């Protein structure tokens, strides 16, 4: 019988995505064998991340302040806004170093089968921040799958009447693939070949 505190740790670790029972065990043993300071640092990091990190009030990416680094960075271009499904996609676009505008994170895509409608996404907030005259172009960088395309179309119908230029990243990204997993070259190409909707 393994001690209960160890079982509890393994059970918690096994809930992480991509971590199976065996890996959880390995991680738990590692933590147990490491100097005790490691466990203290780890638990403090865990505590802090949930206490301090929250969504940026403007673009809904992550920050430990009111606004995130992308929103505060004065060198970034206010006239162009890139809309992404999630944080991993934002990071993927950012890694290309091709994009110097601002972001907006939807936190999902329209998905009738999963019960996600417009009200479950940060769409109202997107519309609210598009004061006329400030933003000129919105790049819709949702994934090129069924839900991502439909979400892009939905946004286009809302944004175009506001006099904005709406573009969609080109299909360099494999159809049905995840933006998150696309390699940087593909993504960079897709960004530079974006088309108007």
């Amino acid at each position: 019988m393994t001690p209960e505190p160890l079982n509890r740790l393994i059970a918690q670790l096994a809930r992480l995505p991509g971590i199976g029972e065996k890996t959880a065990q390995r991680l738990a043993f590692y933590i147990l064998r490491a100097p005790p300071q490691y466990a203290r640092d780890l638990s403090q990091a865990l505590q802090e991340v949930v206490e301090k990190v929250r969504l940026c009030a403007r673009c809904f990416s992550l920050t430990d302040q009111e606004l995130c680094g992308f929103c505060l960075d004065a060198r970034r271009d206010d006239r162009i806004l890139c809309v992404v499904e999630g944080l991993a996609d934002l990071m993927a676009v950012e890694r290309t170093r091709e994009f110097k505008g601002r972001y907006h994170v939807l936190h999902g895509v329209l998905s009738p089968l999963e019960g996600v409608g417009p009200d479950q996404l940060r769409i109202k907030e997107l519309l609210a921040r598009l004061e006329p005259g400030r933003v000129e172009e919105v790049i819709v960088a949702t994934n090129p799958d069924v839900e991502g395309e439909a979400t892009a179309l939905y946004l286009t119908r809302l944004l175009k009447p506001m006099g904005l230029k709406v573009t969609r990243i080109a299909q360099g990204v494999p159809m049905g693939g995840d933006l998150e997993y696309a390699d940087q070259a593909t993504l960079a190409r897709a960004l530079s070949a974006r088309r108007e909707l």
Partner: protein
Amino acid sequence: MRLLRLRYSDFRNLADVELAPSEHATIAVGQNGQGKTNLLEGLFFLVTLKPLRASRLQELVRFGAERARVAGTFLLGGAEREIAVEVSGGLRQAYVDGKRASSLEEYFGGVAVVAFTPDDLDVVKGGPEGRRQFLDRAVFNRFPAYLRESRAYGRALKGRNRLLKDHVAPDYLESWDVTLSQTGARLWTRRRALLTELAPRAVAAFAAIGRTVDPAAYTYAPAHLDDVDFQSAAEPALARALHEALVRRRARDLERGFTSVGPHADDLEIRLGERLARTYASQGQQRALILGWKIAEIENLHAALGFLPLLLLDDVSSELDPERNAYLMDYLAASGAQTFLTTTDAALVEKAASADTVWYRVVGGTCTVEARGEGPASG
């Protein structure tokens, strides 16, 4: 392309079976319920990732086992490649040379299969759904990307049907209509392209089978398409036409809670002379129409891919009349294709066999090579 070895582990009732097929015909003989169809199904699944019979993936796993696996060693462009597929927990995973296949195109490149089962023989007289599946199998064989494309369409369709039932805001529904039209237009162009290649060959093959004066006709044209010529319209025009049809029928679709127009609602029309084969042709003629199509598929793949597909024939001979069966067996023997046949009665398929035929006896999920003398043994 040539299949050199095939191994089944816990696939249906095949706990551990290894086959060393012939370059030409490999024939599995056995009584009913022994595992002959399972052998073909395993090979079909390996090459297409789709079950041969409508079933849930988990049913492919041998009762009481955790995972099913089928692995084949192919000679592709002079190199030996192993492709494998595993099913466990209701999911499938494909492997190429031991590594997880990251894209389906990578997996499917270079291999193709045409299967012919007794179910196919009822396609002419059955409902449109069976004919669509029959058609789609040929499309997928010809255009591997079709698997992904038809999945995308299926997802868009399910999504729209849900939105119809939920009576969502028009803007929201509209975004789905456009997406559905785009994915649907892709399926239309794929099916159209397949028919353009295949129909003339099928008509010729049907005529060669003989015994019917009236010519066969195989046509595919979507219903409810106004103002657009399906045969010549470009894909964006088809997408617009589908979108218009969806909009026209929106009130009715909303009322019924499902989408009434699109590739999922179309039919493959098979005619004999001027008349629908479904109501007019005899059973023998209906089966010859399917046989003509299958032969056309083989020849078309050969022309398009530059190699012959693997041919799987599951107990078909017992369902064909003697003359049409003889025609098919002669065709197979002359085709030079790598062929897998099953039968309860060896006499029915003798004409497809030659000196290099490998005969297996299938009993209770096991296969043993059966030596045959100079000539094939009688039934």
